[in-house]
C-alpha cells in the first residue's frame, strides 16, 4: 500500500533473497586467505606501497562482507545508494581536511624559499 519511485521493485527486496550457504563459506574462505596475505605482506618491504597494499586488501575484505554477508548485492537501489553515501561523505571528510594538511608545507603563495 505504498509507492516508492526510487525502488527497483519488491522482487529484488533484500527481505526475500536467500543466499546459498555455499557462497557464505566461499566468502569466509576468501576473507581468511586475505587476512593471511595482509599479515604476510606486512613483513615484505614494499616501501610506501605497504600501506597501500594493506588498505586495498582491507577494502576488498570490507566489500566482500558488505556485498554478501550484508546482502548489499541483492538489495534495493535505495540501500545501495545509502551505503555509497556513507563512503562518499567519509571521502569528503578526509579529502577536504587533507587539502589543508597536505598543502600546509607549501607555505604561502610563492613564498617557498629557493631550494639550494
Amino acid at each position: 500500500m505504498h509507492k516508492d519511485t526510487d525502488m527497483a521493485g519488491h522482487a529484488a527486496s533484500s527481505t526475500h533473497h536467500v543466499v546459498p550457504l555455499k557462497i557464505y563459506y566461499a566468502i569466509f574462505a576468501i576473507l581468511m586467505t586475505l587476512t593471511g596475505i595482509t599479515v604476510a605482506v606486512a613483513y615484505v618491504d614494499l616501501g610506501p606501497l605497504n600501506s597501500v597494499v594493506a588498505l586495498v586488501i582491507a577494502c576488498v575484505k570490507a566489500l566482500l562482507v558488505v556485498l554478501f554477508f550484508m546482502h548489499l548485492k541483492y538489495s534495493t537501489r535505495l540501500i545501495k545508494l545509502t551505503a555509497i553515501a556513507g563512503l562518499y561523505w567519509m571521502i569528503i571528510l578526509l579529502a577536504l581536511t587533507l587539502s589543508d594538511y597536505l598543502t600546509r608545507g607549501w607555505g604561502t603563495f610563492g613564498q617557498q624559499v629557493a631550494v639550494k
Partner: protein
Amino acid sequence: MHNHSTAHPALAHHFDSLDQQQEAASLGMWVFLLTEILFFGGLFLVYTIYRGWYPQAFASASHHLDIPLGTINTAVLIGSSLTMAMAVHAAQLNSRKGIIVFIVLTMVLGTVFLGIKGLEYSHKFHEHLIPGLHFEYAAAPQFVRHAQIFFSLYFVMTGLHAAHMIVGMGLMTWMLIWTARGVIGNGYYSPVEIVGLYWHFVDIVWIFLFPLLYLIGRHA
C-alpha cells in the same frame, strides 16, 4: 508470500504490510550504519593526520602490538560474521533452532574476541603503554611523545569498537529471547537481519583497524 488481509502478529499498527515494516526496518539500520561510518570516520581522520605527521613513531609504537593475538582476533571476528550470516539464513528459512544455535555461536566468538582484547589491554597496562598514565617508552625514547598519540588512538579506536561489540551482543541476547518466545519466525525475521547488519559493520571496522594499528612498518 504474506496474506495482507489477516494481519501478522508482528505487524505494527501503523504499517500496511509486513513487507513495508521489514523494508523500513532494514532501511533504518542502513541509515544508522551511515551514521556509524561517519562516527568512526572522524577517528580514522585523526589517525590519518597523525600517522602522516609521525610515521616513525607510529611504526615504532605499532611494534608493541601483538600480531599473533591480533590475527587470531581478526579470524575470530570474521568467523563470527559467518555465523551471524548463517543465523540470518536460518531466520529466512524460519528455523528457530538454527537462529538460536548460530546466534549463540556468534556470541561465543564475540566473547572470545573481547577476552583476547582484554588480555592485550592488560599487557599494555603492564608494559606501561597507557598514555597519560605512567607511560614509559624506553625502547625508543625519542618517540615517547608521539607514541602516546598512537596509543591514545589505539585505545579509543579499539575501545569504541569493543563497546559496539558489547552493544551487539546485548542485541543478540534480545534476539534469543524473541526467538524463544516465538516473536521471530513465521516470515518475520527483520530484527535478526538488522542485528546481523550491525554485527557485520562492526566486523568491517575491525578489518580496517587491524592493518592500520598492528601492521605498520613491520618489515623494518
